[in-house]
């Protein structure tokens, strides 16, 4: 089948999509956007988190066909033309990135959290990121990164 959708502000049209393909596969293997990661393909790890019409989803659990006429934002779409998004910058500076395989999903999840809640408490951060597995960092510096991003965003807003 053919699927048309918008990804990171650009229109994509992909052909010969097999019904069983996930949005994650379509992004990674058909649209040249491998930033979203596949670490379980089961909705357990959050590495594939993308926005689908402004809602974060596990792209591995969305059929490619369901993306028809929808608007998708992936990790590749977070940064501006010139600068990293504050959430990306904070992950980098806080040391929240080791192997980085969890990072794309965590960035989208954190981006979403800070859209909803400007200054989340620690328990709120933990709850919001509970669906994103990281095997390298023990999460301490991820927590630091989220708080750093929140304070940067607050500074920028004032």
């Amino acid at each position: 089948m053919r699927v048309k959708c918008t990804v990171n502000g650009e229109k994509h049209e992909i052909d010969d999509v097999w019904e069983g393909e996930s949005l994650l596969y379509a992004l990674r293997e058909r649209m040249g956007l491998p930033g979203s990661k596949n670490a379980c393909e089961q909705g357990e790890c959050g590495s594939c988190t993308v926005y689908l019409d402004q809602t974060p989803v596990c792209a591995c659990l969305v059929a490619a066909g369901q993306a028809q006429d929808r608007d998708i934002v992936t990790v590749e779409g977070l940064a501006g033309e010139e600068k990293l998004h504050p959430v990306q910058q904070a992950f980098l500076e806080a040391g929240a990135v080791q192997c980085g395989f969890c990072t794309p999903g965590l960035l989208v999840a954190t981006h979403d959290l800070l859209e909803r809640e400007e200054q989340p408490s620690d328990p709120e951060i933990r709850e919001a990121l509970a669906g994103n597995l990281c095997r390298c960092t023990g999460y301490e510096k991820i927590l630091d990164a989220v708080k750093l991003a929140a304070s940067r965003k607050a500074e920028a807003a004032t």
Partner: protein
Amino acid sequence: MNTPMTPSPARSDQRLDAPITGRGWSVRDSGRGSHPDTSQPIARTAGGGSRGPDDVDNTVTRTGLVKATSTRMDQSSHSGKVGESPLRPDGTLKVTGEFAYSSDMWLADMLWGATLRSPHPYACIRSVDLTEAVKLPGVYAVLTHEDVPGENLYGLEHADQPVLAVDVVRYQGEAVAIVAADHPETARRAVEKIVVDYEVLEPLVDPEVAAFGDMADDVPRLHPDGNKGGGPEGQGGGKNIVRHLPIRKGNPEATADVVVHGEYEVGMQDQAFLGPESGLAVPAEDGGVDLYIATQWLHVDQKQLCRVLGMPAAKVRLTLAGVGGAFGAREDLSMQAHACLLALHTGKPVKMSYSREESFFGHVHRHPAKMRYEHGANRDGKLVYVKAQIILDGGAYASSTPAVVANAATLGVGPYKVNNVAIDGYGVYTNNPPCGAMRGFGAVQAAFGYESQMDKLADALGMDPVELRIRNAMAEGISMPTGQVVDSAAPVAELLRRVAAMPLPPEPQQDSYDLRQLPGGVSNTTHGEGVRRGVGIAIGIKNVCFSEGFDDYSTAKVRLEVIGGESVAMVHTAAAEVGQGLVTVQAQIARTELGVERVTIHPIDTQIGSGGSTSASRQTYVTGGAVKAACEKVRGRVLKLAAERLGRPAAALRLDGDKVVSDADGVMAALVDVLHEDVVEETVKWRHRPTHPLDPETGQGNAHVQYAFAAHRAVVDVDVDLGLIRVVQLDCAQDVGKAMNPDAVVGQIHGGSAQGLGLAVMEEIQVTDGKVRNPSFTDYLIPTILDMPPMTVDVLELADPHAPYGLRGVGEPPTISSTPAIVAAIRAATGKDLTRVPVQPHHII
């Protein structure tokens, strides 16, 4: 072959002629990168991956590649010397999604590989029928062991594992046949169409029976054909023993006032890295193959592949692709040989990427252990003797079992001074999943045994467990159970004191609870009733680097030259960056030794000599040592040049701030003016001081290079009615000799502690009759951000005079002591014995 995608380092500092799959990590970007060799296949990365006009032959891909990054690499413009914490040079690519992991490798005409695996833990193969699989449209190749041109065996220490099974399978998940097709789903369907006729055999799953069962008595010998079977004869006897290592020290008849016995078990833990086993094999025009791969040791992969493919090393070229975590699971081959076989057979690039389920069958795990300990002490708490038997289940193939046995046995009493020791370590073959390297291997299992014993002994003596440990703490100058005298800092007592003195979290308030902070969390299983708090402390010991006389070296090439009017250092090694930050540290060393700001890290590949394994907490030590040594040679030559040009003795000059400086007269010249057109390049093969084999009868010998220590204190809340556990706080004190990059050191301690927490309370591959019951992240649980408590980390820096910069390996120690500390805290909260990890609810209620 279609024109491969090429990377275009539009903004990276990639100026090298090498393949760029793994990319060079530029520490400071000037925006002047020149084009790399465009004949190389490359990872397709969004953004920076493709900007050249002639490198994209696929419009869909091009659409995906439009979002180019024009200035992002500038984000990684950070200098930093040894002891500072500059940002990761690959960090910007990782946060923009552009970093090319092995599973992101892509070529327009590539095929997808898939593997048929045995459903049985032990069976004979009567026949394999490929007819239907081959017929499936889109299938390019279906291969079995008959298609292996070289030797059909591989293995880290003993080549005992078939690349593709011949007439027997020894574990569930053993590879039998491989397929290449034009779509991953087609490949999977073809795998399903292969018909294998198995004669199912009774699996041997009890490691004690495997080791000591009577061979005449129906116990099969899993590797009957001598060395092919793995264990060096003489060490394993005639049974399913890969290695038996006895350690004997002092008086075997020693007696003590107080004796405690214990039997302990450690379950099978998985490394559970997030980036699956994956890579891309590309057939080359010279008949060889180029493999882009996530691994821990390129050269040991290469060596094994050469044997399997029947090719010289020059034709089997490996480049490190981005690695999504490793933790030991990438020490053995997984899909490497399969992808190369398929690529060479079809003449097309072949990508393989395991699903999470397949990953559980595709790599070795942490050895499960059964341990019997006996500790004898005087009334004052002084240990008199330790006796132990440690049985490690290596599963179907040897992998690194011999080294795991050595660690468990030589470190089996822990970081304590004990004069009388009798330990027997065994590694055995069974039909369980193969086990090998995982962070802290051997030392992790033993630590759960000896630290549980120390608590039991403290209890029997009526002594404080920290006091008992301090009273027996080893220190510099003592003799280990192997007779090796410890010749650098061993601050065991100090680490215990520090971790014990850290502030405790506030007591839980029964009236103002937050569900999220109680055991069971938002499942709303308690409002505080039935919740008991416990505190536990533990300490562990780990050897750093490879032991027992292994020729453990690393190779580094360092080049200093003027590029675009700036002095630039380039560092090239084959040492695998797996997330730990070795690339950052290499650049820090070059900046420190050469006084330059700009450092480029060359892509990691087999074009240079081996960097050794990224394991045993050894890379900063050994590859760091090699980079330092190569820099020193380069510096010597540059200062000689400067001395000639400036008319000063070289000894009076040094390099700093991209300048040649004299202590007496300050800045003498810019480095660029001294170098001019000269390119100063040195390659060094660097070794740590030698180690020696252990006596096979007594386990005596100077087998280890360096010892490292970490201590943890855990605070837990346990719902004693439901058996639910919440770790409230987990604090760590560790000596690292020299914190080369303090932020990265702390990151290692956090991550290692989390894996120890996982082993303590949740992580286990459940194996019944040789079959894995939980090969998914739904059923194999690793800690989430809700499970990990806040940590306070205290880093000591007591220099080891034998090591570069005085550093001590960092990665493994925190994984070792966190598990027993958490279990001690659960015991304190519940009063239960808890002799097995992971602790499960039914152990508590």
